[in-house]
């Protein structure tokens, strides 16, 4: 039979020589290998203190973005919910009342906006579907909690901090994917 690769090697079944039977040389060899590893640099990343750098296309938890004046961008058009292959997004629309112009960018807004993070597959289709640049996947990840209910993120969990009142937190939450205002 022809070998598929040239890497195959016949098993050596020769009885061990006296030198090999003494074990000691091979033990010394093995122990020098482990000792050399003892002094090697460790590749461990001590997670909470050190973080692995993210690629620019990393897709973490969602944020709902605001515009430069701090108004919500989302108009509750529902395109993200339609685009979502995991059906993780639900929303309810409401009409902007007079006097709320500083809160909502357009006449219609999302009164309720929920993403089930246990259903979400972090594909980023909602972000692509959004015509108003409102929903983005940020660099936040590994959410931890005790109940399933707490993984259904409400609007207040998703909404980004106001860029006018809390610019630092806003920048931190924004991540690298969001189109900068």
């Amino acid at each position, binding site marked *: 039979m022809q070998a598929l690769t040239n890497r195959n090697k016949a098993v050596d079944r020769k009885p061990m020589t006296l030198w090999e039977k003494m074990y000691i040389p091979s*033990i010394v060899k*093995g*122990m020098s*290998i*482990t*000792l050399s*590893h*003892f002094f*090697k640099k*460790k*590749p*461990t990343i*001590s997670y909470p203190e050190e973080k692995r750098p993210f690629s620019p296309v990393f897709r973490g938890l969602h944020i709902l973005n605001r515009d430069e004046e701090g108004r919500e961008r989302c108009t509750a058009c529902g395109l993200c919910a339609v685009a979502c292959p995991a059906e993780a997004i639900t929303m309810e629309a409401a009409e902007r009342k007079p006097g709320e112009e500083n809160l909502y960018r357009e006449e219609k807004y999302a009164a309720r906006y929920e993403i089930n993070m246990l259903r979400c597959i972090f594909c980023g289709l909602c972000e692509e579907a959004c015509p108003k640049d409102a929903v983005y996947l940020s660099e936040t990840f590994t959410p931890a909690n005790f109940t399933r209910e707490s993984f259904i993120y409400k609007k207040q969990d998703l909404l980004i901090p106001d860029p006018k009142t809390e610019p630092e937190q806003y920048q931190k939450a924004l991540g690298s994917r969001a189109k900068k205002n």
Partner: protein
Amino acid sequence: MFDLAFIIEKAVLIGGIITVSLLIAMYSTWAERKVAGFMQDRLGPNRAGWGGLLQPLADGLKLFMKEEIIPNASNKTLFILGPALAMLTAMMTSAVIPWGGKIEVFGRTVDLQIADINIGILYIFGVVSMGVYGIMIGGWASNNKFSLLAALRGASQMISYELAMGLAIIALLMITGSLSLKTIVEQQSTGWWNFFLQPVGFLIFMVCAFAECNRTPFDLPEAENELNFGYHQEYSSMKLGFYLFAEYINMFISSALMATLYFGGYDIPFVNDANLGANIGINALAAIQGITLFLKVAFFIFFFMWVRWTIPRFRYDQLMNLGWKVLIPLALLNMLVTGAVILWLGH
């Protein structure tokens, strides 16, 4: 005659040595995990305290807090006796090891050795062979087939290797001419270390010490992947802790024994101890001697761990082959050659 000062002196010494043994055993568990980590390119425990130094305390607390389970079908007396005996025999050996020279406290000259008995080595052999009962009783009383198998393996392994160990020691005794550990150390501090006179004997003794401590490559009584957890499978809480702890104390005592018998004990290398003592006083000398011994012991403990994370476990028949067909003939040959050389030099 009743001598109160003598009793206090010995009680303090015993208390000190037990405390030191337990502390070293505690930090051996930390060191083991650190060494394992570093040899496998990991960091080891580093969360509890600086560099993970509080890890043994956390582990101990965890063991104490665990539920204490005694199996229904077990023999309760023996079940509790097992770990107690393992711990007891592990601690008892330290009585005859000299930990340093003499010190002077309150006008008394105190030997840093609990008992300088003239049959020190025989005493050690007696106690070490009792160590097998800890494993046997624990494994038997658990009423579990894995534990029983492990106990049988442990017993036959320890008995087989004790033989080679004894033969290796006989060759050493032919050189020293004394069974007292103190005399052996004193001989080494003026002359050569016994390692240079008995390299093969040391090798045999060390391999047997590994087997006696049930350390890899001879950890067949534990053999996680064949016998689940070996003889202490049914144990929980601090009774399990005692077994694990006894293993580390055994390791510490074996290291101390190897240092004492073959590497000069508390002898400071390249220095004439008596001259140094005349210059800096005997208390300072004893302190340096103690530190020297502990450095030697620390190296051997490291060596135990180094071997554990390098060499895989023997198969059972290989273990028996090595013990009976290699080590015992080798030890006999070593004894013969030693005797011949002594005879030849004597003439």
